[in-house]
């Protein structure tokens, strides 16, 4: 009897007659953990959903409208699972649609307006079968006002990791201040630096420093400028020439400051020549052409490439190699390391670039940072081993703690 009743019920629903019903449990919420520039429309996944079912949303800035129609959404996309930063990893997320709205089409359908914080928006939703089907509207309108959040809780793992690394690095900096002889393993390329500078002094030829093509505020360039300071100090002590070819005027100015300070530190401010730290070109290959020209004409005894490089890496290092210079490179540009390995005498791989300045200077701040980072790496190794073991045994909860949001 119950089976017959259910059968009749099913036959009278849309599966037979092609009717669709508006979604259940609809709500509009302010997107959590953001700056108030997005809202989310939520509704429960309907049992009858197929690829032919589409949802239509409407948005207005007043409860009485006008409601502006937005692009139709297929029922097979936009789930809570797509927004783990807002809804986490709950099992039930796959049963809920979540449409994130950051902007909306204006009347006419060509121009868009962004969602603004502290402004109330009114949303409506309808459903239709097929792109040309009739829209069946949900009877209610859902109002929502986006607000900015002071704290992005979805980035808590990022923040805690940052705090952990900061504390560890500060502790190690203090330890390094007490004991500046903390152990750092040998980095072959850096050991050879003195030899290269010595060779340049003996040959009476200059040293060339190139710091890649990233901007001044980016980490590889900051590391490169640190190393430049160390090299400049040695160059000043050895009374050798130093040429620094820059691609960016800001980097040029910072490099001038750094080199000048190194010369002063070495007690040779008179030997500092500002014109040797010059602007070559801002365009990648014209910069490469200018530096190549310098290499073949001035024949520097040693070339140092530290920073982030692109396709110019091989052009520069191959020319330097042909000019007979000793070459030491250090980069975290994964695609360019092979070219440096094949053409340079020594290459610092990836993080060795960042370790270099600490290794060279043995300054407590840099040394402590390096040791702190090592402890961070040890922690990551432990997390990876535990995460892999737990995942293998079927529990992903531990690894999810470290997933990016």
């Amino acid at each position, binding site marked *: 009897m119950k089976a017959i009743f259910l059968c009749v019920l099913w036959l009278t629903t849309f599966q037979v007659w092609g009717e669709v019903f508006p979604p259940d449990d609809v709500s509009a919420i302010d997107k959590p953990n953001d700056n108030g520039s997005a809202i989310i429309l939520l509704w429960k996944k309907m049992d009858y959903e197929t690829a032919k079912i589409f949802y239509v949303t409407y948005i207005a800035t007043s409860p009485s409208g006008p409601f502006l129609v937005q692009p139709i959404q297929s029922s097979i996309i936009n789930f809570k699972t797509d927004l783990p930063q807002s809804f986490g990893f709950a099992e039930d997320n796959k049963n809920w649609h979540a449409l994130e709205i950051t902007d909306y089409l204006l009347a006419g359908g060509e121009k868009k307006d962004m969602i603004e914080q502290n402004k109330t928006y009114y949303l409506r939703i309808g459903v239709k079968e097929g792109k040309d089907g009739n829209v069946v509207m949900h009877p209610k309108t859902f109002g929502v006002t986006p607000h900015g959040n002071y704290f992005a809780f979805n*980035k808590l*793992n*990022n*923040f805690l*990791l*940052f705090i952990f*690394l900061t504390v560890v690095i500060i502790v190690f900096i203090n330890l390094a201040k007490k004991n500046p002889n*903390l*152990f*750092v*393993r040998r*980095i072959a390329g850096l050991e050879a630096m003195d030899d290269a500078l010595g060779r340049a002094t003996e040959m009476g030829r200059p040293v060339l420093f190139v710091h890649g093509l990233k*901007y*001044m*505020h*980016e*980490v590889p360039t*900051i590391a490169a400028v640190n190393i430049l300071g160390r090299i400049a100090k040695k160059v000043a002590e050895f009374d050798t020439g130093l040429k620094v070819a820059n691609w960016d*005027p*800001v980097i040029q*100015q*910072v490099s001038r*400051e750094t080199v000048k300070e190194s010369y002063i530190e070495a007690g040779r401010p008179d030997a500092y020549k500002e014109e040797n730290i010059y602007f*070559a*070109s*801002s*365009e990648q290959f*014209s*910069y490469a*052409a200018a530096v190549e*020209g310098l290499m*073949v*004409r001035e024949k520097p005894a040693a070339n140092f490439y530290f920073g982030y490089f692109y*396709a110019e890496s*091989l052009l520069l290092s191959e020319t330097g190699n042909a000019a007979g210079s000793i070459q030491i490179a250090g980069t975290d540009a*994964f*695609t360019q*390391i*092979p070219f440096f390995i*094949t053409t340079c005498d020594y290459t610092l*791989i*990836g*993080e060795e670039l960042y*370790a270099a300045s600490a*290794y060279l200077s043995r300054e407590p701040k840099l040394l402590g940072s*390096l*040791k702190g980072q*090592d402890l961070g*790496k*040890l922690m*990551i*190794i432990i*997390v*990876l081993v535990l995460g*892999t073991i737990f*995942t*293998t045994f079927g529990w992903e909860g531990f690894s999810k703690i*470290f*997933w*990016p949001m």
Partner: protein
Amino acid sequence: MEANQSNLKKDSIVIVLFFLALIVVNGILVGTGKLKFGTEGFGIMVAAALTIALYSFLYQDNPIFKMAEHFYVGVATAYLFIVTWYSVILPDVILAWKDVGGTDVWVTISKSLAIIVPTILGLLVYTRLVPRISWVSRITFAAMIGFGAGFAIPNYITSHILKQAKPSMLSLWTAAGPQWGAIVIFVGVITTLVYFFFSVEHKGSIGFIAKVGVWFLMISFGASFGYTVMARVSLLIGRVSFLFGEWIPLIN
């Protein structure tokens, strides 16, 4: 002095000969109708001349390369100036004032400050032209580096740690048997991390693990090298097809 003059004379002869050769070749091409006489044809002639001039470096440094190099550097600098003017100074410093103003005082103040503060920071860099007050420019550099480091830290933690950790914690064994891909990733990541450990001497078991890490690194560098060389070869093919396709139509 005499040697310099002799070199200068030699350089001038080489450049004149290069231009004469270009005039002859381009004259023949235009005369036979293989190259259009007009702005398009002139563009192809200039591009071909610069391509040959830059490739001449493969033989050795020469005046033709020097000429192309200086031309290239000059054009790039002029281009940077124009790009900076139209994409930074004009929209962000001059035209941006159009959007300032309105009924809300605080919005007006914040929009004004968003233009004034970066402009002042930019102008401070020019204090380097006056040695007595050149130290003021450090304020700008300190702001840039401070902003860069502060902005980079959370992004670095996300992209260099968390995003890398997620696909590294995979199941090594499923109902289908051992997951060799996951096992290789796991071993590769751990051993490579050990290689980048600076606090321990790479000796004994640590040395062995680090050596395995180096092998993983070298294999990935080899793959990357091959891939990039292929891309470079395709660039060379592009230039050769330009020279012998568009300029001198020897190949179809």
